Every structure is written in structure tokens, then in C-alpha cells.
């Protein structure tokens, strides 16, 4: 409640900047500033401990080593490579995300900073900031992991744009859904175990689409509407998250 109060005060008083013809209204700019502050705060805290980044990276690299040792560059027969390797890449990314992303909220609850954050920012701005943080964390991991995976598995990438699209849209969808569900799981008992149970059914359609698009990028066939469905999934999750997160966040 009190988080809305400053915004309401500002909205009630017609600001001078609106009269001067500023492109964005004051509440919108304020909202953006709050989201950016949450994003910056999370990265600052992250760079002090580097806990999530290290968890995600080491988890991804360990899994990659396991997959690589078990399969090797020649472990999968050439006819099955297109079916197996994109799926394994996304399984690695999914498990790395599940290991690192729930921390975004579990950390706030554990250090009892959630209440302060509730007072300091509008709920939807907290959501946007956390999504931006989770997405950028995932992109950083993808940036390191995917070239390594492509090299180790000797995977040719004829359609690089499709691969990038799959990684960006898939990573963004992962971040969106994980942020909403991590906020739910953080308020329950058995947070760490609950998150994958809650998240996997929702992430499954996203993963299947991302795997198919990745398969297309490495030379396989892509069905109609995969890109559209992937973007639609992200858009749906963004709208659902912005609408539902305030209900999760405010007790």
C-alpha cells in the first residue's frame, strides 16, 4: 500500500514536465527508474558475492562436461545428432536456471530485505527489475556456455540468426516464468524443492519450442509458427507476470 503512496501523490499533482511536453509521464519515468534501481541493486549484490553467477556457470559447465564425456564429439551417430544435441543444450540451460534463478527472491526472504523492497518500489517495477536481472544473468551464461557447447560437440550452425533468436527468446521466457514462480516458491516451505515442481510444467512448452528452433538452427526442420509461438509465450508470460506479481508480492 505504502509503496503506491508516493506515485499517487505524484500522479495527483500535474507535473511541470508534462506541461513542457516531456515524452514520458512522471509516473512512467518513476516506474522505469525503480525497475532500473532494482536491476542495478541485484547486479551490485551479485557482483559482491558472485554466488548466482558462479552457481549457474559451474552447474552449466559441469553438466556440459558430463554430457561431453558421455557422448563426445562422435558419441552420437550423425543421424541422431540433430535430435539429441539441441535437447541436451536446453536441458543444461534449464537445470542451470533452476539452480540459480530462484535465489532472486529466496535471498530477499532469507536476509529479510523483502519488506524493505516492498516499501521502496512498486510491485510491477520490482518484477521488471528482477526479470531484467535474471534474463541478463542467463544471457551471460548462454554467452559462455553455448560457444563452448558448439565447439565441444562439433555442432555446425548454418542458421546463426535462428540460434540467437532461440537463445534470446528462450532465455527471456525462462527468466519471466522463473521470476514469477520463484516469488511464489520463496513464500512457501521447502523453497528449493518447490521451485522446479512449480516451474517445469509451465516451462515445458517454452523448452519444446526453443529446442525445435535450435534444431532448425543447426540444420534440422522447423515446424510452422515456432517463432511466433515462442514470442507469444514470452508476451503471455510478461503480461501474466506484470498482472499477477503484485498479488504474489504484497501480502
Amino acid at each position, binding site marked *: 500500500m505504502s509503496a503506491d503512496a508516493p506515485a499517487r501523490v505524484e500522479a495527483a499533482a500535474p507535473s511541470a514536465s508534462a506541461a513542457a511536453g516531456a515524452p514520458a509521464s512522471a509516473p512512467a519515468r518513476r516506474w522505469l527508474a525503480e525497475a532500473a534501481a532494482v536491476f542495478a541493486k541485484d547486479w551490485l549484490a551479485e557482483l559482491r558475492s558472485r554466488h548466482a553467477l558462479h552457481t549457474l556457470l559451474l552447474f552449466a559447465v559441469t553438466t556440459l562436461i558430463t554430457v561431453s564425456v558421455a557422448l563426445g564429439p562422435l558419441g552420437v551417430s550423425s543421424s541422431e545428432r540433430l535430435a539429441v544435441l539441441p535437447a541436451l543444450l536446453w536441458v543444461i540451460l534449464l537445470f542451470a536456471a533452476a539452480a540459480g534463478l530462484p535465489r532472486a527472491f529466496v535471498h530477499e526472504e532469507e536476509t529479510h530485505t523483502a519488506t524493505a523492497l516492498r516499501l521502496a518500489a512498486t510491485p510491477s517495477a520490482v518484477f521488471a527489475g528482477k526479470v531484467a536481472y535474471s534474463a541478463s544473468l542467463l544471457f551471460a551464461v548462454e554467452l559462455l556456455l553455448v560457444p563452448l557447447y558448439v565447439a565441444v560437440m562439433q555442432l555446425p550452425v548454418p542458421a546463426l540468426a535462428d540460434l540467437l533468436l532461440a537463445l534470446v527468446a528462450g532465455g527471456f521466457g525462462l527468466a519471466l516464468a522463473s521470476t514469477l514462480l520463484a516469488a511464489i516458491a520463496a513464500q*512457501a516451505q521447502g523453497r528449493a524443492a*518447490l521451485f522446479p*515442481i512449480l516451474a517445469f*510444467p509451465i516451462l515445458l512448452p517454452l523448452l519444446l519450442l526453443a529446442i525445435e528452433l535450435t534444431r532448425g538452427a543447426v540444420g534440422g526442420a522447423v515446424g510452422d509458427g515456432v517463432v511466433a509461438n515462442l514470442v507469444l509465450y514470452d508476451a503471455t508470460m510478461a503480461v501474466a507476470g506484470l498482472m499477477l506479481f503484485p*498479488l504474489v508480492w504484497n501480502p
Partner: protein
Amino acid sequence: MALKPLSLAWRWALWVWIALAIAGAFFYAPLAKDFIGQSSRILFFHVPMAWASFVAFLAAGVWSVVYLWKRQPDHDRAAAAAVELGLVFAVLATLTGAMWAKVMWHAWWNWDPRQMSIVIALAFYGAYLVLRGGVEDPEARARLCAVYAVIGLVVAPYLYFVMPRQAEFSLHPQPVVNAAAKVEMNSRMLQVLITSSLGFTVFFFWVHGLRRRLLRLADRRAEGSVTA
């Protein structure tokens, strides 16, 4: 309690209605072409079960929206009861589907798009019940579960109707209303199927009312034990 004779009457009517649907499935509807033996008759039970589970999950989502709006514990109980029953119907639909697949496809399970969808739905609403068990505070539990069910409201239509229809290859018989939006079914079969689906839907709402009352009584007893 003034409605008692009437409420008793519709229950008997439902009993007769479902008996008619069962009789119709075995004696009135013809067998579908190209199906092994009598296996097509499972359609009149399998499809209504899947339909009832969809209605249940949809109802759970609607009650969750109402809960988030009004914050009445009764709507939360209604959503929880609907998810429980929806899961029962979904498990039954999965089992009858697997039986039929064993006869027609010679395999209980082969990850047909529809089998995939129902498994995701089962995992999702199973997770809903795990979440219910994971939150102590009744208000927080109701709020978090309602949000989760609303996410389901977004995902469920996609799982039941979009994903199976857009799959390139499926062995599952064409849904009654298929991608071409055409009803391709013998009219007698369609009559029995609609009768059965209606019967299952009303049956769901009846059992749901009972379960909802049971949950309310359990909550009241818990409150009573706290104050006593």
C-alpha cells in the same frame, strides 16, 4: 432447505441421464470405422472425462480469479476442490486413453501430442496441490495458489486445444471439432457423446459441491480447535 425435493430430483435425473449415456454407448451408438473390435466405445467415456477435467481446471481458474478479487475463503476452497476433482478426471482420461492406445496402437504410451499435453496438465495441477501443502498461513496459501491457478488458466487452453491441433503428426483420432472446424461423426455417436459429456459435467459440479462443503467443514473444525 426448502429446495430439498427439487435438489433430490435433479440428482435422480442425473442418475437416469448417465445410465442412458452408458446404455447408449453400448447399444445405441454404432462402432466407428477402422477401429479394432469394440474399442471405439471407450470414446463415450474417455472424451467426457477429458472434457470434465478441462471444465474443472477452467472452473478452478475462474474461482481463483474471483478469490483474488473478493478474497473470500470459500472461493479458494472451491478452486481447490475443482483442482482435486479435475486431477481425478484427468487421471481417468489418461488411463482410459492408455487402455485404448494399447488396443489400437499396441503400446500403452508413445508420447502422442495429446498424451504429452495431459501429462503437463497433470504435473501442473499436481504442483498446485504440492504448493497448497507447502504454505502454512491460510491467507497466503489461498493467495499464492490462486495466482498459480490463474497461470494455469493461461496455460490449460493451450495444452488442451492448441498444442494437439498444431502438432504435425498425431495418431490420436481427430477431435470432434477438429482443425478444419468440422464435425465429422456419425450422428448417433455424436448424440451419445454429447449426452455423456453433459452428464459428466453435471456430475463434476455435483461432486464439487460436496467436496467444497467438506473442505468448509474441515476449515471450521480447524478454527474451532484453535479457539477451544
